[in-house]
Protein backbone atom coordinates (compact mmCIF):
# COMPACT_ATOMS: atom_id res chain seq x y z
CA UNK A 1 0.00 0.00 0.00
CA UNK A 2 1.46 3.35 -0.99
CA UNK A 3 1.91 6.26 1.39
CA UNK A 4 -0.97 8.30 -0.05
CA UNK A 5 -3.33 5.34 0.09
CA UNK A 6 -2.67 4.83 3.80
CA UNK A 7 -3.24 8.51 4.42
CA UNK A 8 -6.37 8.44 2.29
CA UNK A 9 -7.64 5.45 4.17
CA UNK A 10 -7.01 7.16 7.48
CA UNK A 11 -9.01 10.23 6.51
CA UNK A 12 -11.90 8.19 5.12
CA UNK A 13 -11.96 6.29 8.40
CA UNK A 14 -11.98 9.51 10.31
CA UNK A 15 -14.59 11.35 8.28
CA UNK A 16 -16.91 9.09 6.30
CA UNK A 17 -16.65 5.93 8.39
CA UNK A 18 -16.44 7.80 11.65
CA UNK A 19 -17.97 5.43 14.23
CA UNK A 20 -19.82 8.19 16.05
CA UNK A 21 -20.97 10.74 13.49
CA UNK A 22 -21.00 8.47 10.45
CA UNK A 23 -22.29 5.16 11.75
CA UNK A 24 -24.08 6.45 14.88
CA UNK A 25 -22.46 3.95 17.25
CA UNK A 26 -21.68 4.71 20.87
CA UNK A 27 -23.79 7.87 20.90
CA UNK A 28 -24.87 7.62 24.54
CA UNK A 29 -21.43 8.16 26.03
CA UNK A 30 -20.56 10.75 23.39
CA UNK A 31 -23.49 12.93 24.40
CA UNK A 32 -23.15 12.41 28.13
CA UNK A 33 -19.50 12.88 29.01
CA UNK A 34 -18.28 15.51 26.54
CA UNK A 35 -18.82 18.47 28.86
CA UNK A 36 -15.07 19.05 29.12
CA UNK A 37 -11.87 17.96 27.42
CA UNK A 38 -10.51 15.96 30.37
CA UNK A 39 -13.51 13.65 30.44
CA UNK A 40 -13.44 13.25 26.68
CA UNK A 41 -9.79 12.21 26.62
CA UNK A 42 -10.21 9.91 29.64
CA UNK A 43 -13.22 8.18 28.14
CA UNK A 44 -11.58 7.97 24.72
CA UNK A 45 -8.46 6.33 26.13
CA UNK A 46 -10.50 3.90 28.26
CA UNK A 47 -12.59 2.85 25.26
CA UNK A 48 -9.50 2.53 23.04
CA UNK A 49 -7.77 0.28 25.57
CA UNK A 50 -10.84 -1.93 26.01
CA UNK A 51 -11.51 -2.04 22.27
CA UNK A 52 -7.93 -2.98 21.34
CA UNK A 53 -7.61 -5.64 24.04
CA UNK A 54 -11.04 -7.09 23.32
CA UNK A 55 -10.26 -7.25 19.60
CA UNK A 56 -7.01 -9.10 20.36
CA UNK A 57 -8.70 -11.57 22.73
CA UNK A 58 -11.72 -12.17 20.53
CA UNK A 59 -9.44 -12.75 17.56
CA UNK A 60 -7.34 -15.16 19.64
CA UNK A 61 -10.33 -17.31 20.61
CA UNK A 62 -12.16 -16.99 17.29
CA UNK A 63 -11.37 -20.55 16.16
CA UNK A 64 -12.30 -22.30 19.39
CA UNK A 65 -15.57 -20.46 20.12
CA UNK A 66 -18.70 -22.43 19.20
CA UNK A 67 -20.89 -20.40 16.87
CA UNK A 68 -24.04 -20.64 19.01
CA UNK A 69 -22.60 -18.95 22.07
CA UNK A 70 -20.18 -16.49 20.50
CA UNK A 71 -22.06 -13.38 21.70
CA UNK A 72 -22.05 -14.39 25.41
CA UNK A 73 -18.34 -15.28 25.13
CA UNK A 74 -17.54 -11.86 23.65
CA UNK A 75 -19.65 -10.11 26.29
CA UNK A 76 -17.79 -11.90 29.11
CA UNK A 77 -14.44 -10.91 27.58
CA UNK A 78 -15.52 -7.29 27.22
CA UNK A 79 -17.09 -7.11 30.71
CA UNK A 80 -13.92 -8.51 32.27
CA UNK A 81 -11.76 -5.94 30.49
CA UNK A 82 -14.09 -3.11 31.48
CA UNK A 83 -14.02 -4.23 35.13
CA UNK A 84 -10.20 -4.22 35.04
CA UNK A 85 -9.99 -0.81 33.36
CA UNK A 86 -12.52 0.56 35.86
CA UNK A 87 -10.50 -0.70 38.82
CA UNK A 88 -7.26 0.72 37.41
CA UNK A 89 -8.93 4.10 36.86
CA UNK A 90 -10.41 4.09 40.34
CA UNK A 91 -6.94 3.50 41.78
CA UNK A 92 -4.85 5.90 39.71
CA UNK A 93 -7.25 8.57 38.43
CA UNK A 94 -9.98 8.80 41.09
CA UNK A 95 -11.17 12.27 40.02
CA UNK A 96 -11.67 11.15 36.44
CA UNK A 97 -13.35 7.95 37.62
CA UNK A 98 -15.93 9.83 39.66
CA UNK A 99 -16.51 12.38 36.87
CA UNK A 100 -17.26 9.66 34.32
CA UNK A 101 -19.37 7.76 36.85
CA UNK A 102 -21.61 5.01 35.52
CA UNK A 103 -20.33 5.52 31.99
CA UNK A 104 -17.17 3.53 32.70
CA UNK A 105 -19.29 0.45 33.39
CA UNK A 106 -21.49 1.23 30.45
CA UNK A 107 -18.51 0.79 28.08
CA UNK A 108 -19.64 -2.86 28.14
CA UNK A 109 -22.74 -2.01 26.14
CA UNK A 110 -20.99 0.52 23.89
CA UNK A 111 -22.03 -0.68 20.44
CA UNK A 112 -18.62 0.09 18.91
CA UNK A 113 -16.87 -2.60 20.95
CA UNK A 114 -19.27 -5.48 20.37
CA UNK A 115 -19.72 -4.28 16.79
CA UNK A 116 -15.98 -4.47 16.03
CA UNK A 117 -15.65 -7.83 17.81
CA UNK A 118 -18.47 -9.22 15.72
CA UNK A 119 -17.70 -7.58 12.39
CA UNK A 120 -13.90 -7.60 12.35
CA UNK A 121 -12.05 -9.42 15.13
CA UNK A 122 -14.05 -12.64 14.85
CA UNK A 123 -12.88 -13.08 11.25
CA UNK A 124 -9.33 -11.72 11.22
CA UNK A 125 -5.95 -12.63 12.73
CA UNK A 126 -4.61 -10.92 15.83
CA UNK A 127 -2.40 -8.28 14.16
CA UNK A 128 -5.01 -6.62 11.93
CA UNK A 129 -7.59 -6.87 14.74
CA UNK A 130 -5.33 -4.96 17.11
CA UNK A 131 -4.72 -2.30 14.45
CA UNK A 132 -8.45 -2.06 13.76
CA UNK A 133 -9.14 -1.59 17.47
CA UNK A 134 -6.53 1.15 17.76
CA UNK A 135 -7.73 3.10 14.73
CA UNK A 136 -11.41 2.80 15.68
CA UNK A 137 -10.58 3.88 19.22
CA UNK A 138 -8.56 6.78 17.89
CA UNK A 139 -11.36 8.12 15.71
CA UNK A 140 -13.79 7.65 18.61
CA UNK A 141 -11.45 9.70 20.83
CA UNK A 142 -11.14 12.42 18.19
CA UNK A 143 -14.93 12.60 17.86
CA UNK A 144 -15.27 13.00 21.63
CA UNK A 145 -12.55 15.66 21.53
CA UNK A 146 -14.33 17.63 18.80
CA UNK A 147 -17.61 17.56 20.74
CA UNK A 148 -16.00 18.53 24.02
CA UNK A 149 -13.92 21.34 22.50
CA UNK A 150 -17.03 23.00 21.10
CA UNK A 151 -19.09 22.45 24.24
CA UNK A 152 -16.43 23.58 26.67
CA UNK A 153 -15.42 26.60 24.59
CA UNK A 154 -18.93 27.98 24.10
CA UNK A 155 -20.30 26.78 27.42
CA UNK A 156 -17.62 28.09 29.78
CA UNK A 157 -15.37 30.23 27.55
CA UNK A 158 -12.31 28.45 28.95
CA UNK A 159 -10.19 25.76 27.35
CA UNK A 160 -8.37 23.83 30.06
CA UNK A 161 -6.60 20.55 30.56
CA UNK A 162 -5.51 18.90 33.79
CA UNK A 163 -3.33 15.96 34.74
CA UNK A 164 -5.67 13.09 35.67
CA UNK A 165 -3.08 11.37 37.90
CA UNK A 166 -2.46 14.29 40.23
CA UNK A 167 -5.61 16.30 39.47
CA UNK A 168 -3.57 19.48 38.89
CA UNK A 169 -4.22 21.91 36.07
CA UNK A 170 -1.77 21.89 33.16
CA UNK A 171 -3.17 24.96 31.44
CA UNK A 172 -6.34 27.02 31.21
CA UNK A 173 -6.98 29.73 28.63
CA UNK A 174 -10.01 32.00 28.57
CA UNK A 175 -10.95 32.54 24.94
CA UNK A 176 -14.39 34.06 25.38
CA UNK A 177 -14.63 37.00 27.81
CA UNK A 178 -16.63 36.52 30.98
CA UNK A 179 -20.35 37.15 30.57
CA UNK A 180 -20.32 36.18 26.89
CA UNK A 181 -20.30 32.40 27.32
CA UNK A 182 -23.42 30.37 26.52
CA UNK A 183 -24.07 27.99 29.48
CA UNK A 184 -26.64 26.10 27.40
CA UNK A 185 -23.79 24.28 25.65
CA UNK A 186 -22.80 22.41 28.80
CA UNK A 187 -26.39 21.21 29.35
CA UNK A 188 -28.25 18.40 27.59
CA UNK A 189 -29.63 20.78 24.97
CA UNK A 190 -26.13 21.77 23.92
CA UNK A 191 -25.10 18.14 23.65
CA UNK A 192 -27.88 17.34 21.19
CA UNK A 193 -27.34 20.54 19.17
CA UNK A 194 -23.56 20.12 18.91
CA UNK A 195 -23.98 16.51 17.91
CA UNK A 196 -26.58 17.38 15.25
CA UNK A 197 -24.34 20.06 13.73
CA UNK A 198 -21.24 17.86 13.64
CA UNK A 199 -23.21 14.95 12.15
CA UNK A 200 -24.65 17.31 9.54
CA UNK A 201 -21.15 18.59 8.73
CA UNK A 202 -19.90 15.02 8.18
CA UNK A 203 -22.93 14.23 6.03
CA UNK A 204 -22.39 17.43 4.00
CA UNK A 205 -18.77 16.37 3.43
CA UNK A 206 -19.96 12.93 2.28
CA UNK A 207 -22.49 14.47 -0.13
CA UNK A 208 -19.74 16.72 -1.49
CA UNK A 209 -17.42 13.73 -1.99
CA UNK A 210 -20.01 11.64 -3.78
CA UNK A 211 -21.00 14.61 -5.99
CA UNK A 212 -17.31 15.01 -6.89
CA UNK A 213 -17.01 11.28 -7.64
CA UNK A 214 -19.99 11.50 -9.97
CA UNK A 215 -18.54 14.56 -11.68
CA UNK A 216 -15.35 12.61 -12.46
CA UNK A 217 -17.34 9.84 -14.12
Amino acid at each position, binding site marked *: MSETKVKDNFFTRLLTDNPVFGLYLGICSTLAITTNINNAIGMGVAVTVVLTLSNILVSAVRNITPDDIHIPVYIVIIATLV*TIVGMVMQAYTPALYSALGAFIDLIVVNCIILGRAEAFASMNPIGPSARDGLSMGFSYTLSLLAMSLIRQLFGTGIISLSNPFTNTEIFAVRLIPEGFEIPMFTSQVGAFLTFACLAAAI*SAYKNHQSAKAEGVK
Partner: protein
Amino acid sequence: MQLFTMFISAMLINNIILSKFLGMCPFMGVSTRLENAVGMGVAVIFVIFGASVLSWFLYYYVLVPLHLEYMELICFILLIAAFVQFVEMFIKKNSPGLYKQLGIYLPLITTNCAVLYVAQDNITQGYNLLETMVNSVAVPAGFMLMLCIFACIRERLQGNDVPKAFEGNPIAFIIAAIMAVAFTSLSGLV
Protein backbone atom coordinates in the same frame (compact mmCIF):
# COMPACT_ATOMS: atom_id res chain seq x y z
CA MET B 1 -46.38 9.40 48.49
CA GLN B 2 -42.62 9.20 48.45
CA LEU B 3 -42.79 6.36 45.95
CA PHE B 4 -45.06 8.44 43.73
CA THR B 5 -42.61 11.34 43.81
CA MET B 6 -39.88 8.90 42.92
CA PHE B 7 -41.93 7.59 40.00
CA ILE B 8 -42.60 11.04 38.55
CA SER B 9 -39.04 12.17 38.96
CA ALA B 10 -37.58 9.04 37.38
CA MET B 11 -40.04 9.17 34.51
CA LEU B 12 -40.18 12.86 33.61
CA ILE B 13 -37.49 14.91 35.33
CA ASN B 14 -34.52 12.57 35.18
CA ASN B 15 -35.76 11.16 31.90
CA ILE B 16 -33.41 8.45 30.77
CA ILE B 17 -33.09 9.76 27.22
CA LEU B 18 -33.11 13.52 27.59
CA SER B 19 -31.14 13.91 30.81
CA LYS B 20 -29.03 10.74 30.98
CA PHE B 21 -28.56 10.10 27.24
CA LEU B 22 -29.05 6.34 27.56
CA GLY B 23 -30.75 4.07 25.07
CA MET B 24 -29.99 6.40 22.19
CA CYS B 25 -29.58 3.60 19.63
CA PRO B 26 -33.18 2.28 19.79
CA PHE B 27 -34.35 5.87 20.29
CA MET B 28 -32.91 6.85 16.91
CA GLY B 29 -33.45 3.49 15.20
CA VAL B 30 -37.03 2.55 16.07
CA SER B 31 -38.65 5.97 16.34
CA THR B 32 -39.60 6.36 12.69
CA ARG B 33 -43.12 4.93 13.11
CA LEU B 34 -45.51 5.07 16.06
CA GLU B 35 -46.41 1.34 15.91
CA ASN B 36 -42.78 0.31 16.20
CA ALA B 37 -42.22 2.80 19.00
CA VAL B 38 -45.08 1.32 21.06
CA GLY B 39 -43.84 -2.25 20.46
CA MET B 40 -40.31 -1.38 21.47
CA GLY B 41 -41.54 0.59 24.50
CA VAL B 42 -43.58 -2.32 25.86
CA ALA B 43 -40.70 -4.75 25.30
CA VAL B 44 -38.29 -2.42 27.11
CA ILE B 45 -40.61 -1.96 30.11
CA PHE B 46 -40.95 -5.71 30.45
CA VAL B 47 -37.24 -6.47 30.10
CA ILE B 48 -36.00 -3.66 32.36
CA PHE B 49 -38.48 -4.60 35.09
CA GLY B 50 -37.64 -8.30 34.96
CA ALA B 51 -33.89 -7.86 34.62
CA SER B 52 -33.66 -5.24 37.40
CA VAL B 53 -35.64 -7.27 39.93
CA LEU B 54 -33.60 -10.39 39.11
CA SER B 55 -30.32 -8.46 39.41
CA TRP B 56 -31.45 -7.09 42.76
CA PHE B 57 -31.95 -10.64 44.09
CA LEU B 58 -28.70 -11.78 42.47
CA TYR B 59 -26.76 -8.97 44.11
CA TYR B 60 -28.16 -9.16 47.66
CA TYR B 61 -28.65 -12.91 47.91
CA VAL B 62 -25.68 -14.26 45.94
CA LEU B 63 -22.95 -11.69 45.42
CA VAL B 64 -23.03 -9.95 48.80
CA PRO B 65 -22.98 -13.16 50.94
CA LEU B 66 -20.10 -14.48 48.82
CA HIS B 67 -18.23 -11.11 48.87
CA LEU B 68 -18.15 -11.02 45.09
CA GLU B 69 -19.42 -7.44 44.64
CA TYR B 70 -16.67 -6.69 42.13
CA MET B 71 -18.20 -9.30 39.80
CA GLU B 72 -21.35 -7.16 39.59
CA LEU B 73 -20.81 -5.97 36.02
CA ILE B 74 -20.07 -9.39 34.52
CA CYS B 75 -22.93 -11.08 36.36
CA PHE B 76 -25.47 -8.40 35.48
CA ILE B 77 -24.66 -8.32 31.78
CA LEU B 78 -24.85 -12.11 31.57
CA LEU B 79 -28.10 -12.11 33.50
CA ILE B 80 -29.58 -9.51 31.13
CA ALA B 81 -28.45 -11.42 28.03
CA ALA B 82 -29.81 -14.69 29.41
CA PHE B 83 -33.07 -13.06 30.51
CA VAL B 84 -33.67 -11.53 27.09
CA GLN B 85 -32.93 -14.86 25.41
CA PHE B 86 -35.28 -16.66 27.80
CA VAL B 87 -38.10 -14.17 27.30
CA GLU B 88 -37.69 -14.47 23.56
CA MET B 89 -37.93 -18.27 23.68
CA PHE B 90 -40.87 -18.17 26.11
CA ILE B 91 -42.90 -15.75 24.01
CA LYS B 92 -42.06 -17.61 20.82
CA LYS B 93 -43.40 -20.85 22.26
CA ASN B 94 -46.46 -19.59 24.15
CA SER B 95 -47.71 -16.64 22.19
CA PRO B 96 -46.68 -16.57 18.53
CA GLY B 97 -48.88 -13.52 17.91
CA LEU B 98 -47.07 -11.45 20.50
CA TYR B 99 -43.75 -12.78 19.25
CA LYS B 100 -44.51 -11.51 15.78
CA GLN B 101 -45.08 -8.03 17.18
CA LEU B 102 -42.25 -7.87 19.71
CA GLY B 103 -39.85 -10.48 18.37
CA ILE B 104 -37.62 -8.25 16.32
CA TYR B 105 -37.13 -5.80 19.18
CA LEU B 106 -36.03 -8.30 21.79
CA PRO B 107 -32.49 -9.07 20.55
CA LEU B 108 -31.89 -5.32 20.23
CA ILE B 109 -32.60 -4.81 23.90
CA THR B 110 -29.52 -6.66 25.17
CA THR B 111 -27.37 -3.87 23.78
CA ASN B 112 -29.66 -1.17 25.16
CA CYS B 113 -27.50 0.57 27.74
CA ALA B 114 -30.58 1.62 29.70
CA VAL B 115 -31.14 -1.97 30.92
CA LEU B 116 -27.69 -2.30 32.46
CA TYR B 117 -27.86 1.25 33.81
CA VAL B 118 -31.15 0.73 35.66
CA ALA B 119 -29.95 -2.58 37.15
CA GLN B 120 -26.77 -0.94 38.44
CA ASP B 121 -28.46 2.27 39.53
CA ASN B 122 -30.84 0.34 41.82
CA ILE B 123 -27.80 -1.09 43.60
CA THR B 124 -25.72 2.12 43.82
CA GLN B 125 -28.73 4.07 45.16
CA GLY B 126 -29.29 1.37 47.78
CA TYR B 127 -32.96 0.90 46.92
CA ASN B 128 -34.99 -1.79 48.69
CA LEU B 129 -37.10 -4.24 46.70
CA LEU B 130 -40.20 -2.03 46.51
CA GLU B 131 -38.21 1.04 45.43
CA THR B 132 -36.36 -1.08 42.89
CA MET B 133 -39.66 -2.19 41.39
CA VAL B 134 -41.03 1.36 41.20
CA ASN B 135 -37.81 2.69 39.69
CA SER B 136 -37.60 -0.07 37.11
CA VAL B 137 -41.11 0.65 35.87
CA ALA B 138 -40.78 4.44 35.93
CA VAL B 139 -37.54 4.67 33.94
CA PRO B 140 -38.67 2.57 30.95
CA ALA B 141 -42.09 4.27 31.10
CA GLY B 142 -40.26 7.56 30.54
CA PHE B 143 -38.35 5.90 27.73
CA MET B 144 -41.56 4.74 26.08
CA LEU B 145 -43.21 8.15 26.46
CA MET B 146 -40.23 9.81 24.82
CA LEU B 147 -40.12 7.22 22.04
CA CYS B 148 -43.81 7.73 21.22
CA ILE B 149 -43.66 11.55 21.21
CA PHE B 150 -40.56 11.38 19.08
CA ALA B 151 -42.11 8.92 16.62
CA CYS B 152 -45.14 11.18 16.16
CA ILE B 153 -42.91 14.16 15.40
CA ARG B 154 -40.78 12.20 12.98
CA GLU B 155 -43.84 10.85 11.14
CA ARG B 156 -44.93 14.42 10.46
CA LEU B 157 -41.43 15.42 9.50
CA GLN B 158 -41.22 12.99 6.62
CA GLY B 159 -42.85 15.19 3.98
CA ASN B 160 -40.98 18.31 5.04
CA ASP B 161 -38.20 20.07 3.24
CA VAL B 162 -35.09 19.57 5.38
CA PRO B 163 -31.64 20.87 4.32
CA LYS B 164 -29.83 18.03 2.61
CA ALA B 165 -27.03 17.70 5.15
CA PHE B 166 -29.54 17.49 8.02
CA GLU B 167 -31.65 14.72 6.48
CA GLY B 168 -32.15 11.62 8.60
CA ASN B 169 -30.47 11.51 11.98
CA PRO B 170 -29.07 15.08 12.32
CA ILE B 171 -32.54 16.66 12.20
CA ALA B 172 -33.72 14.08 14.73
CA PHE B 173 -31.03 15.31 17.12
CA ILE B 174 -32.18 18.91 16.63
CA ILE B 175 -35.71 17.79 17.60
CA ALA B 176 -34.28 15.99 20.62
CA ALA B 177 -32.55 19.23 21.64
CA ILE B 178 -35.84 21.15 21.45
CA MET B 179 -37.58 18.41 23.45
CA ALA B 180 -34.83 18.62 26.05
CA VAL B 181 -35.59 22.35 26.43
CA ALA B 182 -39.25 21.53 27.02
CA PHE B 183 -38.49 18.83 29.55
CA THR B 184 -36.07 21.02 31.50
CA SER B 185 -39.01 23.13 32.57
CA LEU B 186 -40.59 20.10 34.26
CA SER B 187 -37.85 20.10 36.89
CA GLY B 188 -39.96 22.34 39.12
CA LEU B 189 -42.62 19.62 39.38
CA VAL B 190 -41.28 17.79 42.43
